[in-house]
Every structure is written in structure tokens, then in C-alpha cells.
């Protein structure tokens, strides 16, 4: 479904991604693990067209997307829970959800989609008229997830969605990501929480200093020396 072929990305003179190749099949739950500063967020921004790769190509369902603009890529069924959530602080919960469906704006089933999100996160229903800025960290995480689901994406990108959440919420979040994937959405999950991530992922990639240094099934990654040493601390 998603494929990167030797993608390199630079910010000015600094090369952040070096010839990154990876593929995520339809229906898969793939993960990208890597330490701070490895280039994980840059990879997400590159997929979305926020930054353009200097070389290599990105493919979505067999079509090349690395020369498209972000809104064109999103229109092809990609949604994201960005790093740091990036909610619209002065918009209400409901307006944020509406932004999640921006591409279609007023789909016939808008109410059904919103109510589906409310059923997943009842707290959001209670706070629908409240501005996003006034919500707790956990509620903001829910809203970011709900917002991403509003477009009924085929590919969901998640950039460290568990960051800053209490352990109970992290647990819930991972269960939800798994459920979303099981309902048919392809998921590409960027995380630092390797243990939890490898419990739900089918397969994954390791990114270090902008390079893919490992790839394989979740099972094999859990066993690999590199992961055990660098991420699982066992």
C-alpha cells in the first residue's frame, strides 16, 4: 500500500533521511522504532508532502505521490495523528473533528462518523463545545485520534501517539490502534515504546540517524539483539 524507495530528505544542508526504503502492505500494522532525533517525524512529514524528498520515490497504492502537495496526498485516503497532536487550539472539539473530515467537508454520513468517534471516546461527546486548548493531555490525545478517524482513512499514520500519556491511557490507546487496524485500516505507527508497539504490530523497521538499520516481523524484532539492546533494555 505504502512504499518508500531510497528516500532522502534534507532540511537545508542537513541530511535527515538517508536512502530510506520500506513498505507497508494493505491491512498491515507496521511500526517504525527509533530513538529521538532519528528522523521518524521527518519521515512522516515526507510521506505527507510537508517536506519534499531530495531523492527517491514514495508510492501509495502503486501511484507515485512524492511530487504531490499535502492536500492531494491526504485526499488519497491518508490521515495522521501528528507528533504533539497539533490540535486546533481555538476550535471546539466538534470543530476539530470537522477539520478531520476537511477533504469531504460535509459528507452525507458526517453525523454517523462523528457519533462513531464519540462512541469510541465518550469524553469527547461531553466536551464537544469546549475548545481543544482547555482539554487535558489524555483528552487531547483522544481528540487527535478521533480527528484522524473522521476522514475514514485507508492509511493511518501515527507519530508517537502515546507520548505523555498515563500508563492506563497508553494501554487503551494501543488496544484502540489494534482495533482500528483490525477493522481494515492500514496503520503505520511511529513509536519509542518498543515493547508495547511490538506486541500489536505485524512488522516493523528500525531507524537510526536517518537510516533503516533493521526490519522484520514483530516477532523477529522482539528477538533481535539490536532491539533488545537499544529499546527493550533487557
Amino acid at each position, binding site marked *: 500500500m505504502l512504499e518508500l524507495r531510497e528516500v532522502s530528505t534534507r532540511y537545508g544542508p542537513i541530511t535527515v533521511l538517508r536512502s530510506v526504503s520500506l513498505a507497508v502492505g494493505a491491512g498491515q500494522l507496521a511500526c517504525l522504532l527509533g530513538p529521538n532525533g532519528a528522523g521518524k517525524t521527518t519521515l512522516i512529514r515526507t510521506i505527507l508532502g510537508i517536506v519534499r524528498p531530495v531523492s527517491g520515490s514514495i508510492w501509495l497504492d502503486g501511484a507515485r505521490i512524492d511530487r504531490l502537495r*499535502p492536500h492531494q496526498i491526504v485526499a488519497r485516503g491518508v490521515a495522521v495523528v501528528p507528533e504533539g497532536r497539533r490540535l486546533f487550539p481555538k476550535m471546539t472539539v466538534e470543530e476539530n473533528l470537522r*477539520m478531520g473530515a476537511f*477533504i469531504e467537508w460535509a459528507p452525507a454520513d458526517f453525523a454517523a462518523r462523528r457519533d462513531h468517534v464519540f462512541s469510541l471516546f465518550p469524553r469527547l461527546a461531553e466536551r464537544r463545545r469546549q475548545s481543544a486548548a482547555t482539554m487535558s493531555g489524555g483528552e487531547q490525545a483522544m481528540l487527535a485520534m478521533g*480527528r484522524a478517524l473522521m476522514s475514514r482513512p485507508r492509511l493511518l499514520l501515527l507519530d508517537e501517539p502515546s507520548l505523555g500519556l498515563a500508563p492506563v491511557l497508553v494501554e487503551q490507546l494501543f488496544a484502540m490502534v489494534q482495533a482500528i487496524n483490525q477493522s481494515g485500516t492500514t496503520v503505520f505507527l511511529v513509536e519509542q515504546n518498543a515493547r508495547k508497539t511490538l506486541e500489536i504490530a505485524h512488522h516493523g523497521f528500525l531507524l537510526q540517524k536517518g537510516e533503516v538499520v533493521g526490519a522484520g516481523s514483530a516477532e523477529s524484532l522482539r528477538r533481535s539483539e539490536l532491539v533488545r539492546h537499544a529499546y527493550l533494555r533487557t
Partner: protein
Amino acid sequence: MPPLELLLQQTLNGVMLGVMYALIAVGFTLFFGVLDVIHFSHGDIFMLGAFVGLSTLLGLAVVGLRTPLLALPPAFAVAVLVTGLVGVGAERVCVKPLARSSPLMTLLATLSLGLVLRESVLIFYPRGADPKPFPQLLPAGGFEVGGVAVRYENLTILAIGFAAMIGVDLVIRRTRMGAAIRAVAQDPEAAQMMGVNLDRTVDATFFLGSGLAAVAGMLSGFYYGEIHFIMGITGGVIGFSAAAIGGLGNVYGAIVGGLLFGVLQTTAAALIPRGSEFRDVVAFAVVMLFLIFKPSGILGEKSVERV
């Protein structure tokens, strides 16, 4: 102490002026919202709107459309459309390409563009150096309540001005493009991640803001009875001040700031001896006090200190 009627009268006059200032200020604040820039040629866009409106009215008169109902709607439409497109052109040529470089570059580029607009009217408009009489198409006459003279012409200006503001408010709060504008103002990258077309949204914002300035330009023509190629300098400074008082980036703040500035000017004229000579001094002194004591403006959240 001046009589109460005089104060009321001046407040009414101030609201009149304030509506025009507000229409200019909304543009400044919208542009700052989406691009974090001050578009210093916006005052000259306002002037251009007045001249496009005037030309259209004169053209319509030639083909026999002289009655208000036949002439005003097309004149406003043409002025908004043409000025809006010029605003988009200005943004594409000298605002957005520089928005990511130093604010000084944008300052220089937009100040220069303002000069070009002024000089163009001066040179290319027939006898461009002279003030141009503006056709008086708004209803004449009026009435008096409690010693305050209310002219139909002024009521019409108020009605058109408020209608324009309500229209913009509806666009911003209720439409898809309005949501895009608000989203870009709050977080451009997140907006793009939701599928917002950044370039188109910035274009739409400049079209909207410049179109409003054109409405202000025409109202100014009706109010003063004439327009002049340098009217954009004062108009721009006042509109910018109004936006700053209200808090840059906040549309309602800009409206409040515009009305406040207008009322300050006219009541200063009534309250202070020889006040009509000092009205701008008083109004701008208040602006400076605002900038010193509340730099984020009445309703502002975005701090302007970083500019």
C-alpha cells in the same frame, strides 16, 4: 463640558468612520493570521478599491445606469472583485514569497508595492493628482432624534459596512474556506495535514481582506464626497492601528479596534479645545498606550512582541 447631544452626535460620527476603519483592519488581521506578516500596502489597496469603484460608477453612468439601485450593486461587485484580485496578486508577488524570510523584507516589499500603487493611480488615472469627486448615490435627507442629526446617507454607510462584516464573519465561521483560514491561522502544518490547500487558502484570505478594503474605499468616497490617491496612507495606518488595538490575528478585535479608533477621533474633537485639529494626535496617543500596556491587543492572544 460639551452638551450631551454633541457627544452623542460625535459618537455616531465616530461609529461611521469606525466601520470603514474596521473593514480595513480586518484585512490586516486576516493576513497576519494566515502568514504572520503585516501587509503594508493594504492601505493603498483600500485606495485602489475606491478608484475602481469610482471608475465603475462613471462607466455605468455613461451607459445610463445612474440610479442607486442599478449602479451600486455592480459598482460594489466590480470594486470587490478587481481589488480582491489585485490583493491576491500582491500577496503572490511580494508577500508570500518573502513570508519565510526576515519581516524586514516583507516590510520593504509591501511598502514599495504601496508606492507603486499610489504612483500608478497618480500617473494613469486622468488628472490623478487631484481629489476626485465621488458620485453621491446614497439617499439624501435625514431626521433628528434627541438633538442628534441622523442622515440617511450615513445609515446606508453603516448598513453596508455592517453587512460586509457580517458576511465575512459568516464566511469565516460557516464555510469550508473559512475553516481552512482559521486552521491555517492556528497551525499551518496541521491544517495541511487535514487536507487544507495552503496556497489556495492564503489566496482566498487576501481576496477576502482586499475585497473588504474595497468596500471601505467606496464607503469612504460616499462619506467624504471625494477620493484622493494618497488616502491609503492614512487609511492604512489607521486600519493597522485598529487591528493592533484589537489584537492582530483576531477578526472581532479588529472590528472593535476600528470602531474604537473612530469614536476616539470624533469624541476627542468634541471634548478637547481645538480638538478637531488634535483628533489624530489623541487617537494615536491611545494606540501607543495600548501598544505599551497591552501589546497583545484587546482581544489578542497571539503576541506581537516577536515581530
